[in-house]
């Protein structure tokens, strides 16, 4: 097991290097740069611009810049934001909590609701419930997240006035209740696609399992249907879901980016978009690396968890 984890970590490091190189190249290929907004200002002379460029090291060839960045990164120096000089890690740190809050809540909703819909849909295949769930999932998957976010704001915040239109808390309040009140709409929006996906995956996984020979064996033993489904079927059906959860993580991250923007949620997604706007290279690269690490760790955890849960893999 330890060897396996070491092996996977080694792969992860190589992947991170590749991701960073591609990210770095694309970022610098995009037109404009950190100084383009100053260039329009008449107070800055060309000399000033050149001086700042030199100071930031942006005049060097791109590969050198990359290797310099990579070298610092490896030593734990993620750089400083061009905007306010704050260390990248602390910028990420101050936005991480909000994003995690959103993602964890959405995932809990998706797993419980989607899982339940999927199991019932598989057990009562082609029933009215199953057909409605199927149509519902298709609709949910086709709705763009940003649009659903805007509709939610229009209906629940503007028309009905039940929910706040954005932000994580009311300034000056910040009580638990206030935080929850703000969380409802964005979490719901982010959970929509996740729930639909979980429902579909759960349904097909469950369908496959309930046609297995060992389910017939369980029936032949005269066990109650509840025990057959909850113990014999669900345990097996959940195994592939672990892998799917690991694979779903990047989608969730992407969805969070959009949701955060729509709901002016002070998380990493919005920070990322803002930083791209400012060409704040160190922060953009920092978030990119951090997200990539999270995705890799997520899939590694999913695989380890699979091995822990599935007795056939556990023994190796």
């Amino acid at each position: 097991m330890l060897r396996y984890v070491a092996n996977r970590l080694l792969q992860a490091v190589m992947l991170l290097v590749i991701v960073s190189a591609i990210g770095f190249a694309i970022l610098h290929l995009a037109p404009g740069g950190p100084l383009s907004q100053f260039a329009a200002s008449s107070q800055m002379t060309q000399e000033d611009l050149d001086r700042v460029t030199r100071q930031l090291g942006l005049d060097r060839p791109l590969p050198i810049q990359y290797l310099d960045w990579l070298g610092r990164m490896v030593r734990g120096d993620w750089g400083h934001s061009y905007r306010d000089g704050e260390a990248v890690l602390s910028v990420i740190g101050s936005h991480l909590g909000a994003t995690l809050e959103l993602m964890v809540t959405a995932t809990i909703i998706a797993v419980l609701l989607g899982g339940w819909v999927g199991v019932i849909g598989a057990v009562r295949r082609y029933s009215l419930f199953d057909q409605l769930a199927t149509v519902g999932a298709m609709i949910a998957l086709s709705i763009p997240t940003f649009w659903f976010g805007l509709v939610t704001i229009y209906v629940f915040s503007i028309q009905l006035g039940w929910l706040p239109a954005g932000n994580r808390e009311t300034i000056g309040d910040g009580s638990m209740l206030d935080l929850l009140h703000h969380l409802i709409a964005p979490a719901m929006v982010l959970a929509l696609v996740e729930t639909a996906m979980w429902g579909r995956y759960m349904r097909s996984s469950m369908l496959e399992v309930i046609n297995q020979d060992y389910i017939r064996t369980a029936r032949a033993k005269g066990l109650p249907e509840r025990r057959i489904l909850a113990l014999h079927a669900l345990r097996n059906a959940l195994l592939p879901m672990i892998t799917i959860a690991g694979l779903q993580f990047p989608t969730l991250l992407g969805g969070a980016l959009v949701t955060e923007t729509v709901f002016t949620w002070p998380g990493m997604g919005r920070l990322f978009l803002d930083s791209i706007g400012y060409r704040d290279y160190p922060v953009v690269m920092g978030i990119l690396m951090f997200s990539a690490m999270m995705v890799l760790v997520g899939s590694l955890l999913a695989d380890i968890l699979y091995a822990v849960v599935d007795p056939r893999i556990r023994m190796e």
Partner: protein
Amino acid sequence: MTSPVPPACFDAVATPVLSATGLTTSFSRDGQWLPVVRNISFDVAARETVAIVGESGSGKSVTALSIMRLIPQQSGRIEGSVRLAGRELLTLPEQAMREVRGNEIAMIFQEPMTSLNPVLTIGTQISEALVYHRGLSRTAAEAESIRLLDHVRIPAAVSRFADYPHHFSGGMRQRVMIAMALACKPKLLIADEPTTALDVTIQAQIVELLKELQQDEGMSILFITHDMGVVAEVADRTVVMYHGEAVETDRTTRIFTAPSHAYTRALLSAVPRLGSMAGRAQPMRFPIVDKVTGGSDTPVEMPDTVARTERPVLEVKHLTTRFPIRSGLFGRIAGRVHAVENVSFSLHAGETLALVGESGCGKSTTGRSILKLITPDSGSVVVDGEDVLGMGARELRALRRRMQIVFQDPFASLNPRMSVGAAIAAPLHANRLAAASEARDKIADLLVRVGLSADMARRYPHEFSGGQRQRICIARALALQPKLIIADEAVSALDVSVKAQVVNLMLELQDSMKLSYLFISHDMAVVERMSHRVAVMYLGEIVEIGPRAAVFGDPQHPYTKKLMAAVPIPDPARRTTRRGISNDEIRSPVRAPDYQPPARQYREVSPGHIVQLWDA
């Protein structure tokens, strides 16, 4: 019990344990109810074993599932009457039926590998029935489960309670299934092809075990099988099913000695009997009985097709194929599967050499190594004087025209999206051997040769039965006019009567085309019928090789003897001979990386009959 007991049939004096009357099961298809089992009636008396025998699609398994009411309710309908000790089961509410399942009637299935839940320990799976039906506490259920595991002769039962199914071999898993079924001391055990997926020595163990447990527990058994040999060994009475109907129901001895229905006669004549070839020099066709009229042809021995004076078509010397088992970060070799170890034999034109052995003995790997579908580690394979193993890709392609392979599963070895004609023409086109018009004639000719008709070329594989598909696979193999055909369990997946027909076809083709067969099989009785020479493989090595008559008539190696003793004999008169239960598992050919196979000594018993010497 207020209602009068129905009169007992046959020799059962008391109420039969199970009584099915007019049992009819239909499945819904496009809004229509199609009966799959029609009007079946039979009784199972106390302590009696009744076999339901039939070929695939005869409705025997559906009959079993109908008795348990395990047919899906939306798509299936069960009519008639099924009485368990006088109580009607078909009208019971589902809740009450659940009390019957696993408690009064238990069932074991064909596939021990997939019939146990992979994520639950076997202890959990055995004890849950005890908890539900007998209301035992967890600890009491555990103690009882261990007793049951012990009862089905699982070694070290206590320590195996918490093991998962994948820790067990196929035979051991079937024992676990039996332990599970016996948990609540059922009145009736339904065994649906319980030994079909098992190797012959393991099959013999399970049959013996079931017989002994039946005596201990005093239960009745309904035994579903396609194997007449197993029927003869276990059943007091037999129901023969054909196309969803019971065509004949009688005492097993009478079924075998005086079958009244034409289908029963057809089935019995197609059953290969080990030992039936004693005193015959050449392979022999199976007699084919017409399933409607019951008329039969009388097969004669095949003419001698073997060209003994010429150079052999295939010469294999010291062939060795090992598969490394890797583990760890750098893929270090942790061990090796010695799949084929120092195997040597030769095969003449027009000759059939059978490679027999149980699963994992390396017989299929040998076949594939000869074709270089798997690259062997060492040794030499010479076909028509040319060394296969030293060849480059192009030469190998050319040489493969002369040797073809037919696989076991005719459903998986034909591309479902390719018409039969295209499938047969594929090897011709791949070798640029025929123009389009020429190919058409050739395909027509090949189809006729294998007993199909020329106009079938346009059809697709799903329109054919298993036997027809295997004929198509043979036609495809013949397309390049090979000298050698490697038949890898080519008739094993076929029903008895179809198997007989395909064996007959192979014999005719051998005679007309002077083909050589390397016939890889686990079925001793078929091998005896159709081969000239036999090689017995065990753990990757040939332990005994020789002319068929010598190996079958005078087996020398203990493994050969064991293999032959395990084959069920389709003769109810020999039923009483007990073999005694052994617990031997099939041994594994996995060895440590530094393992050196010992140098073997061989002894020639009679001309061409060579036996590996063993440690006594």
